[in-house]
């Protein structure tokens, strides 16, 4: 707490189940200018915080909100101590915190968010001043939208790149968006910024590694599709078309295609014993490899076309990393080489695959 902090709310609450609702009502008045989604998040934080403090000892709770230099702080004090939050509350805290930059102090239950709670200027004013070259207004907006940028970078959380690196790239995207945004065009800033930040992140991933994620569920669908294809082949005496397969599975055509491609690419690699032979079913033939319907997931379908070019072990490592989502050390244990070696092989394979997919890319280094 610094001397500049000022208290904007102080409540004595009864230590009973009505306390969260009472606190939320008080906060609602203070937060009426926040966007509704932010207000809702704030309400959840307040409610969780107070609920955790309602306990056996029935001492009154003191709830205060302080405005700080960078945001605001919620503070709950109770004579009876505070329950450690259960799993669900924990998850909520974590997820909201990730978007809000909330920090948690170990001693008191204090949450400090760097998102401004009581801004004095409207966003419209700020954007106009940014357009006029006001760097302070730009800084203010950059801070307000920090959590927004971070939320976008979280979407790339499984890309294998460190979270704080992604956050940094997202912040760069945000700053670029602020520099280029023109409020007169009638596009909402969040729409514009989301596009810019997303582009920045994708560029970064393309230049520095590989962005690829096989949607969960694709694995199961691939298995099911394979079984169904075998059944239908037996019934009809011929291999089913992709359409027939999708209809029988009651699944989306392009999803089935992707799932099959995924399986096909990894069929031999995914077996624990090294198997050289292909499936007897020739799913490869049932599925035209350049089917344009598969282009909904360009990265994935492109990749599956060139994966066969990799040596067995490298293909298996790629499979374990991106399809099974294992860490490098887990892969090392499975494959029987060091984690360093896995890291090296991954980097090599990824580089190779990228150049095969996009020959325009300059060679590494």
């Amino acid at each position, binding site marked *: 707490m610094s001397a500049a902090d000022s208290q904007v709310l102080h409540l004595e609450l009864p230590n009973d189940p009505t306390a969260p609702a009472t606190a939320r009502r008080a906060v609602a008045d203070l937060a009426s200018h926040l966007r509704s989604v932010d207000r809702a998040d704030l309400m959840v934080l307040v*409610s969780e915080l107070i609920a955790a403090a309602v306990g056996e000892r029935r001492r009154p709770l003191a709830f205060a909100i302080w405005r700080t230099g960078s945001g605001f702080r919620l503070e709950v004090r109770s004579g009876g101590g505070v329950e450690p939050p259960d799993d669900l509350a924990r998850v909520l805290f974590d997820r909201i915190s990730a978007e809000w930059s909330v920090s948690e102090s170990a001693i008191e239950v204090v949450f400090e968010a760097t998102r401004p709670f009581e801004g004095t200027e409207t966003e419209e004013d700020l954007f106009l001043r940014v357009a006029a070259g006001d760097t302070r207004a730009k800084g203010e907006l950059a801070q307000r939208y920090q959590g927004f940028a971070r939320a976008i970078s979280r979407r790339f959380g499984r890309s294998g790149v460190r979270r704080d690196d992604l956050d940094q790239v997202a912040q760069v995207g945000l700053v670029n968006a602020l520099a280029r945004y023109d409020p007169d065009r009638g596009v909402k800033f969040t729409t514009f910024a989301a596009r810019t930040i997303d582009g920045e992140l994708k560029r970064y991933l393309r230049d520095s590694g590989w962005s690829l994620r096989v949607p969960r569920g694709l694995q199961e669908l691939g298995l099911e599709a394979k079984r169904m294809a075998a059944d239908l082949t037996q019934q009809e005496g011929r291999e089913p078309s992709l359409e027939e397969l999708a209809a029988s599975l009651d699944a989306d055509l392009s999803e089935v295609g992707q799932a099959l491609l995924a399986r096909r690419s990894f069929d031999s690699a995914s077996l624990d014993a090294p198997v050289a032979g292909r499936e007897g079913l020739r799913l490869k033939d049932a599925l035209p490899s350049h089917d344009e319907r598969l282009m909904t997931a360009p990265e994935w379908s492109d990749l599956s076309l060139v994966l066969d070019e990799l040596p067995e072990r490298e293909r298996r490592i790629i499979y374990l990393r991106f399809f099974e989502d294992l860490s490098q050390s887990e892969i090392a244990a499975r494959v029987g080489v060091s984690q360093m070696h896995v890291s090296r092989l991954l980097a090599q394979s990824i580089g190779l695959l990228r150049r095969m997919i996009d020959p325009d890319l300059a060679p590494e280094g």
Partner: protein
Amino acid sequence: MGDQPAIEMVLARHGDWNVAQVRGDLDMATAPQLEAAFEHPNGQVALDLGKVRFIDSTGLRALVRLRETQQRVVLVAPSPVVRRLLSLTRMTEVFSIADTVEALDSME
């Protein structure tokens, strides 16, 4: 002793479903009422959450518990705040969600 818990529930039948239209805030003050309304286990329960203005982890936990004690629980038209919480906790993958009470008819 603070304010009265702000929740209203309208119970109705729709086919094989016990439908509860919930209105208000679902938190530690009101969640027990929701659970109390479905004391009998192993029913088919549809919770219309379109009028829920607020929900926190205590409210969510009540839904999870109902899901465990009832044969089936479907959430109907959850309001934006409910959806937000469900997606923050990845519960969207756990609960069945229907757009309308009528849509319950076509659920197998």
